[in-house]
């Protein structure tokens, strides 16, 4: 045992789990916020250390309870999970920093419960990412989902309740489908450990149950990840949640489920099911393209800032799936990189929304006319983050779209056709971001312009997130390397 560093993979789960009951005992809002933020930041630091450790010495494995792999539960941190861990803990930290209190929806004496739920959501998402056991993923999936339902139900309007109920039903169906799929694989292989499953499933001769398992797992996780036709829970849930919560979950939660989906499809099923890759590609690519076009088009028609960004998320999930459905290292690299970059861009945008919502209390576009003159700093940040979402060179969003185009071109003529939806989606992104800019900068603000900037610390956090977008747009090395290694790991098993 060389100190704590041997336990690194478990720490991002243990710390929030330890903090959440403590917050219940503390009961006091300020202390609760401080405890939540401190543990979230600590986990962020651990995630950074883990990224360094993975880059230095490869995959980090941890046997919980000291029971060896297929018998006990194993935690695995490889390049892919390290990247996701970075996204999850980072999103949580940034969103918590702007949220020392939640809006009017949550009474003061119940806010500590809210931070508890936040910590549980963080623990659940981290737990999914580091786990190497199929059933364990289900358990942590449920922790994160239940906690997310609570967070969304804290939204200010009654619509939040209706939205969260629908999310609960669809989320439970998704998780149960996943459980059925895991059950079928377990039935045919006798193991729950992912690595073990991958090795054993090759010997299975009766493939029908495995096929059905693949179907259940793909549909279940696609439901959780809001992949196009199964996205209907997402816009309402994002739009009616408290602002800080939206920033948190929009940045990371769907990506975590995409991560599990990729893990299963590429590691467990690929190479073991004849024709699975072609089916995956033939099934996912049209859906991804429709998602890009449909999501962007609906976003164009939105009159509320949060709905606009939520539908944009549907489109962006389409980009990630499009990269994955190319089933090449470069395509998957682009998809995974886009997870990271979209988290940066969308996270920053929703942080900006949180600032606007806190300062002005309105989010519908017609009421925001001229608002940029009242909140110049916030709207400047919004514009830069918006550029990143569109994919303007010099921002993070550009890098992943560029790699997506390159990967598509590798496929020849067919690939060149794939660029069309990417471009159309980007053009539509330009238009819907422009709608906001137009309203905020060129709208009629009335005679007297009162400065109503959000509190300084919120603007600082917001700008930190925005500058990260620029930084990773100019220096994409680290996430790019991680994404490339993760893609190689998924496709070639190395």
């Amino acid at each position: 045992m060389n100190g704590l560093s041997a336990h690194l993979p478990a720490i991002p789960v243990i710390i929030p789990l330890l903090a959440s009951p403590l917050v219940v005992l503390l009961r006091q809002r300020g202390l609760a916020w401080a405890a939540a933020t401190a543990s979230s930041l600590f986990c962020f630091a651990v995630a950074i250390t883990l990224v360094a450790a993975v880059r230095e010495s490869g995959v980090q494995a941890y046997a919980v309870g000291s029971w060896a792999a297929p018998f006990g539960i194993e935690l695995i941190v490889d390049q892919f999970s390290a990247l996701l861990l970075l996204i999850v803990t980072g999103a949580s930290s940034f969103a918590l920093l702007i949220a020392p209190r939640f809006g009017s929806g949550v009474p003061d004496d119940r806010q500590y419960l809210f931070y508890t739920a936040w910590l549980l959501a963080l623990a659940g998402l981290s737990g999914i990412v580091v786990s190497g056991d199929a059933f364990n993923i289900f358990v942590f999936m449920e922790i994160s989902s239940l906690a997310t339902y609570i967070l969304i139900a804290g939204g200010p309007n009654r619509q939040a309740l209706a939205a969260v109920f629908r999310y609960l039903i669809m989320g439970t169906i998704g998780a149960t489908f996943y459980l059925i799929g895991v059950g079928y694989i377990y039935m045919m292989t006798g193991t729950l450990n992912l690595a073990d499953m991958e090795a054993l499933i090759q010997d299975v001769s009766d493939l029908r149950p495995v096929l059905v398992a693949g179907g259940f797992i793909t549909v279940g996780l696609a439901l959780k990840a809001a992949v196009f036709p199964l996205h209907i829970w997402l816009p309402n849930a994002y739009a009616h949640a408290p602002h800080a919560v939206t920033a948190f979950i929009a940045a990371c939660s769907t990506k975590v489920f995409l991560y599990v989906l990729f893990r299963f499809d590429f590691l467990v099923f690929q190479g073991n099911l004849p024709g699975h890759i072609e089916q995956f590609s033939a099934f996912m690519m049209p859906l991804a393209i429709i998602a890009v076009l449909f999501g962007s088009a609906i976003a164009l028609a939105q009159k509320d800032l949060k709905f606009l960004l939520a539908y944009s998320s549907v489109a962006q999930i389409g980009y990630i799936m499009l990269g994955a459905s190319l089933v090449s290292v470069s395509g998957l690299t682009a998809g995974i990189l886009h997870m990271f970059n979209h988290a940066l861009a969308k996270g920053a945008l929703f942080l900006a929304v949180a600032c606007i919502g806190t300062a002005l209390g309105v989010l519908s576009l017609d009421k925001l006319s001229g608002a940029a003159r009242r909140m110049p700093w916030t709207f400047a940040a919004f514009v830069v983050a918006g550029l990143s979402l569109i994919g303007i060179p010099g921002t993070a969003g550009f890098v992943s779209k560029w790699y997506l185009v390159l990967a598509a071109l590798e496929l020849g003529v067919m690939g060149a056709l794939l660029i069309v939806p990417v471009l159309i989606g980007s053009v539509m992104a330009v238009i819907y971001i422009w709608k906001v800019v137009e309203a905020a900068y060129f709208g009629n603000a009335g005679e007297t312009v009162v400065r109503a900037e959000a509190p300084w610390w919120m603007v600082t956090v917001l700008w930190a997130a925005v500058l990260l977008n620029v930084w990773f747009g100019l220096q994409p090395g680290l996430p790019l390397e991680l994404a490339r290694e993760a893609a190689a790991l998924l496709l070639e098993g190395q």
Partner: protein
Amino acid sequence: MVTLFGVFLLTLLVITAVGILRAEHLFVAVMLTGIFSLQMAAMFFILDAADVALTEAAVGAGVATVLLLGALALTNDRERPSGIRPWWPLALIAAATLLVIYATFDQPRLGDPDAPVHQHVAPWYLEETPRLIDVPNVVTAILASFRGYDTLGELFVIFTAGIGVLFLLANPSKGGALSLSQSAESQGLRHHLVPRVVGRLVVPFIVLFGLYVQFHGDYGPGGGFQAGALISAGIILYALVEGESMALKALSFRVLAGMIAGGALLYVGVGIAGILLGGNFLDYSVLSADPVAGQHLGILLVEAAVGLTVTGVLLTIFHSFAARDQKS
């Protein structure tokens, strides 16, 4: 022969499920759900899953029924009859059912000892448990030690549910226990002499039995979760015959919150103790000089943790639903 019993019970299960679906009176649907759970539990018992049968009975037939009734009391017990039912869900569902049934023909048959499920890890558990952990109930050994991390997750799932219900339904302006005693409806079944007397007689036995299940889990079916469900069922019975306020006087919301958080802390604490003593997270072998004794201690502690949290959460949920009742 037992297989035929199973087939009979399964057929009853399907009939009950159809009945639940068709019942327009939600109260009837809840009643049938209780029967459904009992059948399910009997089925689990026939399939050699004693622990699961106990849990399903305590949770499905007991707690879930009480919670559903509590929710019905607060909302509406009638489903509005809907005129047109779209045909497409039925078609979709039928197609999916056929697909799943199609997959079954490649599956191992029920009870086939050569099925892959019985080859890989399961025999290891059955062979090594007596040596490594030395408790007769292998289910408890796996639950609390080999896959103790899952159980930690399970505890936090129920913890999350408790937090969620408190967050959604807590009624702080009312100040909890005192306001409840005024209403006539909180009197429970007090004016019924017979249930009251019998109930009073039975409550201590239920709690005692719950404790037995808690600490006997190493040797027979049982463990923290089952015990928690039974003990909270006992206290719910007390609340039913004596009124909410009496039950809350015995265990207030404050105490319950302490139990919830305390159980969760205890479980994580045991895990961290493993780290501090030089093992991995949730490694009980290092808790004592003798690894097997360490395992026993660890299992005892985490089962107690689960029992505490589950009791706390289930009672919190029950009381939150009941307290809401007074308001409306």
